[in-house]
């Protein structure tokens, strides 16, 4: 990037994507909520979805946060093959952007030490923001609108109500696919009203324990309605999505037919003796925002 300080551009983009994620609900999620409101049969469920849609409008019209939980900050950095930026400096810039958003907006500080519970007051800290790096191929870059020399930041500030509803299970081959399906649905029932349903269900399948958990979170980045490119996995997504909406948990867990807005599975090959499954739930307030930068320093904001 030839602009004077590309890392200042990254810092500002990190700040803006964090704030934008908290204020704007992505269009695919809004459309799914509207569909849910149209199809909901429970009266309380319909009322609840009406309030949710009203709330999204109030936040947009008045430049307010959709939900008070400013989350644990998670970022994905996706770079093109020819991106010249140093990722260590990018990571530092993302941290500075997160701190500035927290202090300058101001946003509620959530990051605490796991033992002393002392709050850093900046939403940053040891290993926070959580950072993920990806190097998409040409086809994926075309889909994302990411130039070969560009960088894309996506912020997913994760609310605790839904993040606390995270599950991992190491199945073995003898358990079969049926166990995987049962586990995913059990997680949705166990989470019940707590993650603010209707939720989006991210499932990680395969890999190792750490990879599997990361894949479940990664699945939440996919716009609703997109399917895994592996038809076997895509069929599993369709089956589980329909089954979850038979459960009757409904909006805010007070009953109804709209329990989830969608379900996405990201998978990896795994060991011959293993079949790990992770579930990461996302609340209806599915905060997700991205910034795509070219080498000229121009930034385009999206979801």
């Amino acid at each position, binding site marked *: 990037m030839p602009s004077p300080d590309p890392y200042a551009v990254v810092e500002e983009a990190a700040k803006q994507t964090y704030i934008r994620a908290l204020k704007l609900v992505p269009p695919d999620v809004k459309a799914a909520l509207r569909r849910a409101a149209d199809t909901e049969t429970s009266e309380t469920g319909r009322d609840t979805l009406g309030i949710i849609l009203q709330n999204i409008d109030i936040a947009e019209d008045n430049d307010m946060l959709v939900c008070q939980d400013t989350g644990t900050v998670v970022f994905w950095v996706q770079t093109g093959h020819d991106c010249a930026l140093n990722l260590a400096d990018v990571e530092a810039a993302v941290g500075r952007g997160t701190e500035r958003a927290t202090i300058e907006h101001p946003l509620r500080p959530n990051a605490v030490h796991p033992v002393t519970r002392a709050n850093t007051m900046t939403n940053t800290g040891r290993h926070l923001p959580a950072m993920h790096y990806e190097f998409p191929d040409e086809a994926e870059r075309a889909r994302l609108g990411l130039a070969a020399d560009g960088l894309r930041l996506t912020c997913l500030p994760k609310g605790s109500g839904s993040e606390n509803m995270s599950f991992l299970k190491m199945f073995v081959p003898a358990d079969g696919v049926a166990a995987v399906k049962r586990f995913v649905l059990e997680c949705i029932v166990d989470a019940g*009203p707590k993650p603010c349903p209707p939720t989006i269900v991210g499932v990680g399948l395969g890999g190792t324990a750490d990879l599997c958990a990361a894949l479940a979170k990664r699945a939440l980045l996919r716009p609703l309605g997109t399917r895994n490119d592996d038809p076997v996995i895509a069929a599993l997504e369709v089956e589980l999505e329909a089954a979850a909406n038979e459960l009757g948990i409904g909006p805010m867990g007070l009953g109804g037919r709209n329990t989830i807005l969608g379900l996405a599975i990201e998978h990896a090959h795994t060991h011959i003796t293993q079949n790990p499954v992770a579930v990461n739930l996302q609340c209806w307030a599915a905060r997700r925002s991205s910034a795509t930068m070219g080498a000229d320093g121009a930034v385009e904001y999206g979801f």
Partner: protein
Amino acid sequence: MTRSNSDERHIAFPITDLDALRELRAGQKLRLDGTVIGIRDATQIAIFDRGEKPRMDLRGAALIHTAPNVRKLGPGRYEKVCIGTTTSARMDRFTRGLMEEYGVRAIIGKGGLLAGSLPVLRELGGVYLAITGGAAALETTQIEAIEEVEFEELMPECLWKFRVKDFGPLIVAMDAHGRSLYEEVTAGARETLAGIVERF
């Protein structure tokens, strides 16, 4: 208690008759006026586990599980930025203490208290009121002012006194008669799940 339209009752908090909420039934819709007290994990750990008594009078109060986004205006003075509601189940173990020792009668939250709180609600005439979780922008517009703050060292998990108007709608999700809408919905979901699993 007054009725504004056919299905939404208005109640002003704090209530003076500590038995007044016994007549509420699961499924009813409410709106609140008066004051609502914000409280959270750290506040209740301070009150009950460390014995730090609050100065605010909680008799007949409606509490709400929250840690707001605020802007500091001066010593002890804050302005709302965004106020919403958090998951209640984490704070379930404080229900008895709040109602028995401090006279709290309504807890507003999302996701419900656990079934173990039902006997406390029944015994003391308390209710759990469900708000639409995540709908903080709307909630913030219904809070008129932050009147008082205590336990400031626990920021943002302080004890907050909010003045509210037409706060809601809230749904009586757990009443003083042993009903919990969450228990009913979850029981149904487990039964349905058992049927679905048969198909796999």
